[in-house]
């Protein structure tokens, strides 16, 4: 702990660790020192001069954003010279700033507006011509309005330091200075929109939101991103039923202010024109819209018939449906239909990790660990592409705590830029490469091992054994690909393991097994698209599909039931680090129903009693019965993440590394969901460009 120093700010005695910046010390004491360029977590600029304060014994006003608190310092933040200076800084800022607040996207959330309101003067003495440059579009999602820019360099820093992309720069000098994209007139970057989010004014605006509404006309719903498994919190702004904006306005949750392109913009899939809004039934070989009642009745009849005659079911479950839906679905399969033929697309060998950890409850890392652990080893994953939040946290950790990162990957990755060591190796050679790092790794205080889908089956056990042999505390993250990939396993969407990795008596068929079987009577597909990867071998299988779009699988279905998107329902998701968070409905699509409701209705139609199909009820059941899910309700209820811990003493394994198939998504692709986001598909530049020297 650093030494404490005593200072007074506005007459109040304050004690703070030596080295704390005066602006932060004041903030902790509840004294606001206004600032534009200062932004916690990023490098210091001292450029806006809003934070100038009076310090006794110092000849000039001092920038509180760069002044470390010193013993005996006497600071005044509201004295006459300070207030006058603040007013004059705002006057300078507004000189060339267009006064287009009535149409500016930022109106109502603009820091310059707020500051002018609090500290500014009503009258303008600037009567000269304003300096003007035209607005520019830099990418499908990023627009830049030069005159509005106050040159606080937040965007440049968040792109450089936060994202590690360095796509933004500053050109010209003096009054002509402007922010510039990396390729003359356009951006080639992650399109994460972090620059837009961090811009205090309306200089950077987003292609999805600009000029569409005002912040106060929207309803803001905090929910969880539907794409990758990192589980970022996103606040969706809706007007009516339409989602207009995604950001993480309140900076809460595991991702703080971070969101990638998908979390920020790709919500638009939910209003894609091809969205299914009515159940479809095959009539004379063609799918025709029918009523929910008719469709449900047909499904139930078929299921009951097949069940009664002891026919074969195959159930392909989803990596994106909620824990409640997953739990209910496997219960439906096992109790309702009497089958263990249930599986999903597995992208990481979580099962092998749970087995290898053999009951060690402290070895599963959280997202916070990624930011705080002193060293990490990344194996077989391009995090910046596949796990943007983990990559962001790792960079922040390195920046703020000088943590060490080691990479063992096939190709170059963004982490190489700051890595303590980087090793390239072909798939299969990872463990050997990792062994080569033994000496360096064993000198670390602790280690976080993050491994991708290429480490599977026995390799996972070997990796854990290697970790054990280092003699330091080691934690693990087994990477999986989709928003509830982890929850799918935890909830037992597996032919051999039930919820909480409990073995079942008679293991059922795996997903490829079902697809290859020639005698399947029913293929029930919930929120997945197996026909995109497999042929269906049973010609006579009756196919029921719960989907948002007419995917390859849905097109082959006998009955299609339109499902709600993650942004349209309640429930919980478990992210890649096992953290469980709550979804809240932001939008609604008429005609579609949440999968849980569909499951419940089919069950009712079949006369099965599987319990009430409300998400809170099912969640209660999960908390009571699924290992590791007895999580505190208040955490979940208040929008925070609760870590689940399903480890147990070994899982009787039938190792099937062949079933682990990472999707290899990039920042701009995400299985079938991604195809239906216009924003994602409009961003054609491949960010891999940035990796080239």
């Amino acid at each position, binding site marked *: 702990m650093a030494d404490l120093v005593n200072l007074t700010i506005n007459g109040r005695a304050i004690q703070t660790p030596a080295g704390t910046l005066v602006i932060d010390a004041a903030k902790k004491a509840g004294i606001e020192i206004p600032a534009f360029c200062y932004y916690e977590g990023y490098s210091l600029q001292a450029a806006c*001069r809003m934070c100038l304060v009076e310090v006794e014994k110092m000849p000039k006003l001092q920038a509180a954003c760069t002044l470390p608190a010193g013993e005996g310092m006497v600071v005044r933040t509201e004295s006459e010279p300070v207030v006058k200076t603040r007013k004059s800084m705002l006057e300078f800022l507004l*000189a060339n700033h267009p006064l287009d607040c009535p149409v500016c996207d930022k109106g109502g959330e603009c820091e310059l507006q707020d500051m002018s309101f609090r500290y500014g003067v009503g009258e303008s003495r600037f009567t*000269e011509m304003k300096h003007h440059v035209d607005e520019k579009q830099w990418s499908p999602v990023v627009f830049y309005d030069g005159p509005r820019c*106050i040159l606080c360099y937040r965007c440049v820093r968040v792109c450089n330091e936060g994202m590690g992309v360095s796509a933004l720069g500053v050109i010209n*000098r003096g009054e002509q200075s402007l922010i510039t994209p990396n390729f003359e007139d356009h951006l080639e970057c992650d399109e994460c929109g972090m620059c837009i989010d961090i811009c205090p004014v309306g200089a950077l605006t987003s292609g999805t939101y600009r000029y569409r509404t005002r912040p106060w006309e929207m309803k803001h719903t905090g929910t969880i991103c539907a794409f990758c498994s990192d589980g970022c919190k996103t606040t969706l702004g809706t007007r009516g039923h339409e989602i207009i904006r995604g950001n993480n306005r309140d900076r809460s949750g595991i991702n703080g202010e971070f969101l990638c392109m998908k979390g920020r913009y790709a919500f638009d899939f939910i209003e894609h024109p091809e969205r299914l809004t009515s159940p479809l039934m095959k009539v004379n070989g063609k799918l025709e819209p029918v009523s929910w009642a008719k469709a449900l009745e047909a499904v139930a009849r078929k299921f009951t018939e097949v069940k009664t005659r002891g026919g074969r079911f195959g159930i392909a479950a989803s990596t994106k449906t909620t824990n409640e839906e997953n739990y209910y679905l496997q219960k439906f399969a096992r109790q309702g239909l009497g089958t263990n033929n249930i599986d999903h697309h597995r992208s990481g060998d979580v099962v092998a990790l749970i087995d290898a950890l053999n009951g060690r409850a402290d070895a599963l890392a959280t997202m916070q660990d990624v930011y705080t652990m002193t060293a990490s080893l990344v194996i077989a994953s391009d995090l910046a592409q596949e796990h943007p939040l983990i990559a962001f946290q790792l960079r922040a950790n390195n920046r703020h705590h000088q943590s060490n990162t080691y990479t063992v990957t096939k190709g170059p990755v963004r982490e190489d830029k700051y890595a303590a060591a980087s090793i390239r190796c072909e798939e299969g050679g990872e463990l050997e490469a990792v062994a080569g790092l033994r000496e360096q790794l064993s000198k670390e205080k602790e280690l976080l091992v993050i491994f991708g889908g290429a480490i599977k089956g026995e390799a996972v056990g070997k990796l854990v054994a290697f970790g054990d042999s280092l003699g330091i505390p080691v934690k693990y993250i087994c990477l999986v690909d989709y928003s509830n990939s982890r929850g799918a396993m935890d909830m037992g969407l597996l032919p051999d393991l039930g919820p909480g990795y409990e073995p079942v008596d008679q293991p059922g068929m795996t997903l490829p097994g079902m697809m290859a079987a020639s005698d399947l009577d029913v293929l029930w597909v919930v929120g997945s698209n197996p026909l995109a990867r497999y042929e269906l071998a049973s010609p006579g299988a009756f196919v029921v599909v719960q989907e948002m779009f007419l995917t390859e699988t849905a097109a082959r279905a006998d009955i299609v039931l339109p499902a709600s998107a993650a942004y349209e329902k309640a429930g919980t998701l478990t992210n890649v680090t096992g953290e469980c968070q709550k979804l809240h409905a932001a939008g609604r699509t008429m005609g579609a129903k949440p999968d849980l409701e569909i499951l419940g209705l089919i069950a009712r139609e079949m006369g099965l009693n599987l319990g009430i199909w409300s998400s809170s009820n099912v969640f209660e059941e999960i908390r009571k019965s699924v290992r590791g899910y007895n999580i505190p309700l208040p955490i979940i209820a208040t929008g925070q993440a609760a870590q689940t811990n399903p480890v147990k003493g070994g899982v009787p394994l039938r190792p099937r590394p062949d079933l682990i198939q990472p999707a290899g998504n990039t920042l701009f692709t995400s299985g079938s969901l991604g195809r239906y986001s216009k924003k994602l598909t409009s961003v054609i530049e491949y960010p891999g460009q940035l990796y080239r020297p």
Partner: protein
Amino acid sequence: MLFNDPSPLEVKILTRRLGLPNSASIETNLANGGYKSFEKALEMTQDQIIQEVKDSNLRGRGGAGFPTGMKWGFVPRQSPKPKYIVVNADESEPGTCKDRVLIENDPHLLIEGCLIAAQAVGAKAGYIYVRGEYRYLIGILDKAIGEAYARGYLGKNILGRGVDFDLYTHTGAGAYECGEESALLESLEGKRGQPRIRPPFPAVAGLYQCPTVLNNVETYCAVPSIIEMGGKAWAALGIPKAGGTKLTCLTGHVNRTGVYELPLGFPVEKMINEVGGGIRGGKKMKAFIPGGSSCPVLTGEEAWPLTMDYDSMAKAGTMLGSGGVIIMDEDTDMVKAALRIMHFYAHESCGWCIPCREGTAWLKKLLTRLNEGVGTAKDVDLVGDLADNMLGKTFCPLGDAAALPTASIVRKFRHEFEAKLARAQAAVPGMANNPFAIV
């Protein structure tokens, strides 16, 4: 080549070899005492060298006048990082043209100064940052550096004494702000010439974040004679608290403009009348700037009784600055002068901080208007007000440099602004009584 005839009143210490045939060559230099001080310094400890410089009362000649010995003393003795010598040859303060004279005529003097500084702090490499416009000086310096390498004054194991020092030239590309030391370092690292947050100062974290001695050309050039004469004797050339001689650039309305080496404390009157041959055309002096356009302007009456040194100028509310004396006679249009000065700062503001970026641009627009006689008395107040709002609040001293002359001109020559407005408005019928006269 000499640029102007010397004056008999000069005390030629730094410039003593100027005017000798082939003065830039190492032969001429060595034949006239060159590198002797460096050889002497090789016999001295680091502390001894720094002590001599402290004794000399040498204050930085780049404009800020910081005591050089003290600055060298800030460089950590022990450092795991390499240390660097950086020469500020950016010479871009309007009114200043002295470093150029030194480099062009006696480049080896600068090299020798760098060598001694390197000895004093334990630096192994140095860079001479030359403003882009002085391209021809790079040729002269590179040639001199080559000669010094050939004679064993630079490179490895210098003069067989186990000392290493490499010296390189580096060109700027046109930016006044790169004269500011931290912006210079940024530029030397291949970036935009934007100043850094200080502290840390270059002595602790300078080039590549390593300990760095950064001084003006003239400062380094003074060092050999300090070592040669001894610090105390050198100090005695000047006045108490300000040792030695200073290269003074006489510019503007004097008969004999030029660069002259004068002892500190030299009377202004004698400088203008005797060294400079009096005001051009026998006119009266209206305004006087002692050290580059960044200094507050004095009226003629204020300036005449002063002496050219740090304290005397500070007492009169201005600064000795870089030695670029700007003299304006009674016919000078002070509004136009204020505009031209602000035109410069607006052009050169790096744009980093709000008050400088916006303030200079606004003032330039405002002064342009006032220079054309468009405006009201309120606008004249606004000029002073805006300058005031910049003063002491900007990220680096460029903002002050813009504000100080402007504020002083408005304060001291306000009547000229008003006269201009009145003249212009009288020329337009009905304008004088028009309440909406602000165009």
